[in-house]
């Protein structure tokens, strides 16, 4: 697969190095002298094309007609949008991926400019931080389906509300499946009658809302409860 990358900043270079390591054929277009000096140290020479990505002749010579993916990683959102538009309407590139520099420009990155996937780095970082803060000890192991669903892991603390209750009797969130329990280093495949023990590591597949509900469910009893119960 041949991937064309516009813009050799840190994002573009990281992507290029990753793809080269996986034996993809890539071509990076960059015009800045100082950036090119660095690129030549980090990428094979045949993967670098010197010129302006917004110059149609440069795009053509760098091979846009046979590119299966165009990734636009320049620091100009206008350039990234214009390049995705050109790639599809003029060169029939099957897939376009664009970097969003300024989150306030994110509303433009859609079909109107033929952007298939838009990567909003600021947004991704913010939602990761927000998630880490709001889920307490729950850890996200894997994102599924563009981040809609996740595989999460949480340890059952002492005094948890769920202790001693069979899974079938728990008010589990709607979009949530308990996938496995790791108990004393062994995998336990859960059934409806399984009950949680202190120290269990619970693996669950859930959506964002389910993760919050699950985190609440695994919390220890509030002080008031402990007195009354």
């Amino acid at each position, binding site marked *: 697969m041949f991937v064309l990358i516009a813009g050799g900043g840190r994002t573009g270079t990281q992507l290029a190095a990753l793809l080269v390591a996986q034996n993809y054929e890539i071509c990076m277009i960059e015009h800045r002298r100082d950036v090119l000096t660095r690129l030549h140290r980090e990428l094979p020479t045949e993967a670098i094309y010197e010129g302006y990505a917004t110059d149609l002749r440069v795009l053509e010579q760098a091979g846009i007609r046979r590119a299966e993916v165009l990734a636009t990683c320049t620091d100009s959102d*206008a350039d990234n949008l214009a390049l995705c538009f050109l790639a599809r309407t003029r060169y029939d590139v099957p897939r376009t991926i664009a970097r969003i520099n300024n989150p306030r420009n994110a509303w433009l990155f859609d079909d109107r400019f033929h952007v298939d996937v838009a990567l909003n780095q600021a947004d991704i970082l913010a939602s990761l931080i927000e998630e880490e803060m709001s889920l307490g000890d729950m850890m996200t192991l894997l994102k599924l389906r563009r981040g809609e669903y996740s595989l999460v892991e949480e340890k059952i603390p002492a005094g948890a509300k769920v202790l001693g209750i069979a899974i079938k009797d728990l008010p589990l969130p709607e979009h949530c499946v308990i996938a496995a329990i790791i108990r004393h280093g062994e995998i336990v495949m859960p059934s409806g009658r399984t009950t949680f023990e202190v120290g269990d590591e619970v693996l669950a597949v859930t959506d964002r809302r389910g993760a919050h509900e699950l985190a609440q469910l695994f919390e220890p009893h509030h002080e008031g409860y402990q007195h009354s119960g």
Partner: protein
Amino acid sequence: MNVIVVGCGRVGAQLAYRLYQKGHHVTVIDQEVAAFDNLPPDFRGRTVEGEVLAHGVLHRAGIEQVDGLAAVTNSDSLNAVVAHIARTKYQVPNVVVRNYDPRWQPLQEAFGLQVISSANWGAQRLEELLYGADMRAVFTAGNGEVGIYEFIVPDTWHARTLAELLPEAGCVPAALTRAGRALLPSQSTVLEDCDAVLVSATLEGIEALRQRLYPEREA
């Protein structure tokens, strides 16, 4: 007419002021508040400070109600992107784009936009003026690809027809003025010296005509 001008540099300020003087409602957008100093002090249109692509800025400038938008910043890709969104999302009926660097004109044209290149257009006019005053452009269309040119018939072409004079390609007659009266000429019109002829021609057409009219200059 309600018009948005994006970019308040020399071209943007000039355009906004001209529109304002003709009585139109003009809104100028620029990300630098200092750019509005380019506007003459008696300009009474609206100014909106903001990055034009940022969410809400075009809306603040009233894009839902405008009849026209001109994107005239010094970033050619920005001009193209703003114009494209104005046409496709907001259905602005009349959208024009300035080309700043002729190298990026193909990129703008790929969007199917009306592009005006001040650099190309200016260079062509200067080139024409350098060729001499005996053939002058009185009107140019697009970026000067086609123009209306006027010349005076020299005595070497007296009593010959227009068909003999005009090149086969890139040049058609538009009007002929003889002794103060204008008429629509045909290919068979017989010329008299001192006739003033208007032709519509491409750059190649006008160059071929110039060589026929003034062959001695080629030496």
